[in-house]
């Protein structure tokens, strides 16, 4: 079937099986192997992407689900201003995810920051989909809180300038 979608800002018409997982579309059709894993639904959490701004596990999203939607992978997200906020939060807290889960965690952090989630339990719950144990819960909560603070400051500065 033909699916119209936007991947990393590019409007595409993909001709593929309707049930092909998004992770495989990104790996095979888009050549994005470094930042998107495909664990066949084993819930490793290392295939996270943003679909319409929300962090989802791409191995659980069939092709037909992305019709008309915007998919952002870490490949394009890493160059955005939003990622800079997350990076600054890592630096401020002094804790970084390992290179294995850096992409996935950064996207989830962004999603939480975007929604303005400050509840500790919700942050831990959302981040528990990444099954890598390189960051403790406390550091993750601190990173989200710090990133929210940094982003708010950025928005305030921008508003003042305009």
């Amino acid at each position, binding site marked *: 079937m033909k699916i119209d979608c936007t991947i990393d800002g590019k409007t595409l018409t993909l001709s593929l099986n309707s049930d092909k997982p998004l992770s495989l579309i990104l790996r*095979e*059709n888009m050549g994005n*192997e*470094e930042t998107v*894993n*495909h*664990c066949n639904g*084993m819930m*490793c959490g*290392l295939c996270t992407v943003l679909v319409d701004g929300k962090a989802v596990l791409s191995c659980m999203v069939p092709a037909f689900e992305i019709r008309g939607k915007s998919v952002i992978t870490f490949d394009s997200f890493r160059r955005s201003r939003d990622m800079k906020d997350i990076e600054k939060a890592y*630096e401020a807290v*002094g*804790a*970084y995810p*390992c*290179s*294995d889960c850096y992409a996935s965690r950064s996207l989830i952090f962004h999603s939480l920051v975007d929604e303005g989630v400050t509840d500790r*339990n919700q942050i*831990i719950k959302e981040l528990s989909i990444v*099954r890598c*144990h*390189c960051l*403790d*819960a*406390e550091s993750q909560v601190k990173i989200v809180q710090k990133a929210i603070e940094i982003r708010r400051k950025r928005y305030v500065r921008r508003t003042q300038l305009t």
Partner: protein
Amino acid sequence: MAERKNFSRYNMRCGILLRAEEGNRRITGLSIPELDSRYLALTGNDIPNGIFSFLSGSMPIIAKENISCPGQIVLALFAPDYESASLMMRNVKLETEEAEEAEITLPDSLEYRWGETQEEEEEEEKENSNRKISSSFTLEHIWRYTRRVYTVTAWMEGANMHIEAPCEWVELVRTTVEKATGYPKRNIIIHVMPYTARHDEFLIEPAIIAAIAAIAAIRTGLPTEIRSTGIYSRPEIKVERTTEVDEDGKPLYENVQMTVNQGAFLFASEEYQRQAMTGLLPPYTLKAFRGSVKVISSPEYPAAFCGSLGYSEALASTEFHVSRLSEKTGITPALYRLTIEKEKRKFTDYIPGYDLGETKKCIEKAANAASYDRKWAANSFQREEFGLLGYLRGIGIASGVGIAGFSTTLSKKLGFSLMMTFTQKHNITVNTSALNHPGTIKIWKERIAEKIIPGRPEGVMFLEAGPDTIDTGPDVLSRLVASLTPQLESAAKRLSVLKDTEKLPVSIKFDAENTYYPCEFENSGSGAVVCEIIIEKGSMIPQARSVWGSFSFPTIMDEVSLRNSIRRTIMMTIVENGIQLPSDFAIHLDISATGTEGTVASVQQIARGLTLGALMNALSQAIGEKAVLPISADRINGMFSKEELS
């Protein structure tokens, strides 16, 4: 480095692997359906020189007649896409029968001793008031597929064979592909993909898979790709240790035997023995010591480096034993360590004599931060009060030093060479295969620049990988960071002299020979770790509550990275051993720099060893002496129900 060719997926072959489910089997039948020209199946018979060799060990790239271990590759099937390959793989039938155990030449056990034991010393009858204290330390075999899927791609371009893979040792991939395909090494171009190898899972497998992909590329004439998951395997380790102590609890004589089950193929066994022996040597003084490390084999997936190569596990066993000694003496383990360890450690062939002051400071810091003595005493008292199940809480401590990477013996064998050139434009170029960590390269640039072109780190350039890249050895155990840093600094010092006396450009080739140690290993960095665990009374799930660590290193290059690296290693070690991390789990780290000149230790090795030791001590306080790692709720339930029955 040559750019990756941008080939269409419609014009390539995708490969999947059939792996054995059981070890020690003989293949009685392998029926492959009739395949048209779009498919290709590779079995052991299709690879004439199908032997993969690595540090004194070897294994078939694809199993031929016998399957030695689960996870061994039996068949590689290539199709236009993965879906077709998977569908076709369903029609492949593998029949096996139990085989006789294959004979494997085991290396001699490594023995090390000093002094004469009591029995040898006193043949004549003499009243002996000494006590013998024994402990048994067991780490069971772990074998897992990692969650990360990786691909290895091979394609031909003119006379060159290109391989794209995540790999920890480029030279190993090149050699394996050369042997399997007959392509000259110079024409094999490796494109290293970024990877995270927590358990050195990208050391052996990618080389084997690259050889298979390369053969398929030659046979089909098309680019080929194999998708696979990493495998890691920790060997089964048993350490039996007996110490004779005097009336005051002071250790006098010690006998220790370590048995390591490395699996079906023995890779780097001798290095394993050397590393393990270093960890087995106790930090306290003894009149006599006898140690042996024996390697055995079994039909399990081969355990090669697995993040530590034996030092961490052996160190953990030593720390476990020290806590058993303290329990028998009636002193808290932290205080006992401070009491029995002298100011200086004995010089041995494996580790030099060094000042134990830093280790003692670390013990004090970690124990004070954790209120270790109070908690240990409370848990011990409560344990006796709580009847059959016990108090189910434990706190453990472990302390020790780190070692830097590989042994001198292995360094002599591998060389770990690099080349440094001072160019006519007064820049420095470094030719090395150790290019995998951008953070480390940044630090190396600063350190080299400091010696030759102060304040101009941008003038130091690491040459991109190519056919002329010098092999700097495997990127495991932080060897490249640990011992290569002083090696680079020595080279820079020499080059700073040569640039003024020789005609430019001037180059020097430097290898490990320039930084050999008098012992097998150089100690570097001290640490102590306290770990507190609790076993949930309802579910019997073991959980780690908090970890306190105190570490001291000669120099700290980047404190944030170091802190993160230690934290990750601690958390990975805990999870790897079946202990859960609750949401309120916390790690309290204290890191200090002594400011002395010294090598940089493999941080992961020391952190892993100390965490393992502290975990084992905590677990044995919580559930008794039968504690083994990895642990699980079922296992703890089983232990108690067996106790109840008996």
